[in-house]
């Protein structure tokens, strides 16, 4: 501990260089934490529902399936429940495409039974199920639009055009448990499929059937069995696990995760080179000083430790700043115009402790690795060699 003030004084010696290096590390850790939080959020949502399948039209997810399929799917061995779920495409302002947010028409009873991640009290659930015009909204969405239970909401669907807006009553605000079900979206509105179907004159069709199965290990067999039922029909089906469905739904794709990780790694590697160069410069400038320390009796190991400690302190301070930046950004991003609309479609994001810890560890490692070469040089160099460099 007695060496910490000595190390800090050296870091302060050229504070512009120290601050710029720490800022570089901060940007790196900020990117790491933000990207990893997004990745964790995406993966969390991808990994949910191992026991759930989604059946859609084999041609495209934009084509419907007949309502009559529901009973036949439910009769497939291994299937526990089936619920229709259509993306509703509701907008608050029909002239403003950006006012669209995630909203689904669901067969509520079965849907809620197979999606325990949307948390409602029994009374709230009863209120929703008992009102065909009812809807439930996530806490984040309710906060965004300042909605509360009992409010009436009008939405115009860009998919189901009826000439007038749909009107709903908010029956309840659902909550999520991000520890048990990480990545669960808190910004979705659910309405009754029956209301949609009736309002559209029974022409809504079913875009997806959510299928709960008894044994996740049987997902492949059951998917095959469901699709076999409708082979060679007018509306052939394509059944896959929920994770596969989400991964194939564009932005949630595995390639995005790979891309985000790739960006993070590239930034980290670049920062490592920059920090290593800075540390080398700092040590090169202090060759005589290191020679003096060794003359005074500082062992090579102690000198090595002091330089590594400098690197680690630099890395950790940069990491802490980066982490705070990341948290701040993730907090304010949903409120930023345009970007916020996009971000709100993702599940609620918060830098989890594991990623924060990982960020600090990476900052520390960056400083350690960057300080390795100059410290080994200082460790090995002879005193006379160091003093001659004056």
């Amino acid at each position, binding site marked *: 501990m007695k060496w910490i003030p000595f190390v800090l004084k050296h870091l302060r010696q050229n504070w512009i260089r120290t601050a710029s290096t720490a800022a570089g590390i901060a940007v790196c850790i900020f990117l790491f934490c933000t990207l990893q939080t997004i990745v964790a959020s995406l993966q969390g949502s991808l990994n949910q529902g191992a026991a759930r399948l989604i059946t859609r039209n084999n041609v495209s997810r934009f084509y419907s399936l007949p309502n009559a399929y529901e009973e036949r799917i439910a009769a497939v061995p291994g299937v526990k429940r089936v619920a229709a779920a259509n993306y509703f495409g509701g907008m608050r302002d029909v002239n403003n495409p950006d006012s669209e947010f995630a909203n689904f028409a669901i067969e509520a009873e079965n849907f809620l039974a197979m999606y325990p991640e949307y948390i409602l009290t029994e009374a709230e659930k009863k209120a929703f199920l008992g009102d065909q015009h009812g809807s439930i909204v996530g806490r984040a969405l309710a906060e965004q639009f300042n909605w509360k239970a009992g409010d009436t909401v009008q939405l115009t669907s860009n998919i189901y055009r009826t000439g007038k807006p749909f009107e709903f009553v908010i029956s309840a605000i659902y909550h999520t448990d991000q520890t048990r079900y990480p990545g669960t979206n808190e910004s979705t509105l659910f309405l009754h499929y029956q209301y949609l179907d009736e309002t559209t004159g029974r022409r809504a069709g079913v875009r997806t059937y959510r299928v709960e199965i008894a044994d996740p290990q049987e997902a492949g067999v059951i998917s095959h069995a469901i699709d076999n039922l409708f082979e060679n029909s007018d509306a052939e089906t394509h059944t896959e696990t929920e994770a596969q469905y989400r991964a194939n739904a564009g932005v949630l794709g595995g390639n995005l995760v790979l891309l985000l990780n790739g960006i993070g790694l590239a930034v980290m590697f670049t920062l490592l080179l920059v920090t290593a160069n800075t540390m080398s410069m700092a040590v090169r400038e202090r060759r005589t*000083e290191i020679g003096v320390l*060794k*003359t*005074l*009796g500082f062992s*090579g190991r102690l000198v090595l430790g002091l330089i590594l400690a400098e690197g680690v302190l630099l890395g950790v301070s940069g990491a802490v700043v980066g982490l705070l930046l990341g948290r701040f950004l993730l907090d304010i991003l949903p409120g930023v115009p345009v970007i916020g609309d996009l971000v709100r479609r993702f599940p609620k994001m918060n830098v989890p402790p594991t990623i924060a810890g990982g960020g600090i560890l990476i900052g520390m490692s960056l400083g350690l690795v960057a300080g390795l070469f100059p410290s080994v040089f200082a460790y090995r160099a002879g005193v006379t060699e160091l003093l001659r460099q004056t």
Partner: protein
Amino acid sequence: MPELNVGAAQAAVKLEGVCKTYQRDGQLIPVLEHIGLSIPQGQFIALMGPSGSGKTTLLNLIAGIDRPTSGSVLVHGTDVTTLSEAALAKWRSRSVGFIFQFYNLIPVLTAVGNVELPLMLTSLSRKQRRERALIALRTVGIADRAEHYPRQLSGGQEQRVAIARAIVGDPQILVADEPTGDLDAKSADEVLDLMQALNHQFGKTIVMVTHDPRAASRAHSQKHLEKGVLLGAQP
């Protein structure tokens, strides 16, 4: 200045058959050849000679910051050539005080911080280290500048701080490489007065490399090196 009675004093430094050869660009360059030297305890000696004669190399060998190619270097009975790097570093911290030509103070530390530095290697508490550092600064007459940084001090003051750093651990021997080489005449005299006082009052053995005959005249004896050979000595 009269020499001490060499015969009566115990040898603080004893070099026997010391050779030092450097290798540069594949060529072996002899710097010191068969040096034999005995410096009694409490002696103040000046090593003189033209540039490249091996004065500083000899000083470095005595101070244990370089190793001879062959021969032995005994300082207060310890053969420093046999010590490992770690043991040698520990030995230096306890036994030798080094005074450089360009002071070599650590710029980020105050005067007292610089003097405290060698004590960081001991088990002394922060308070004890500070007390001892202030005593050393008082000894060299610069305690009033304890909180000043090197950049705020004159050359003479910096060298005084460097001397305080050299004596703070109470080493048996002080080695000085051109300690007045970067100072004006007045400051040089003050530094030499100080070194003489350390020698007289505290009995420190001092080995000083210098080009300056005036500085050398303050020593008990002068040794002359030329082309790596100690003049007037038996090989």
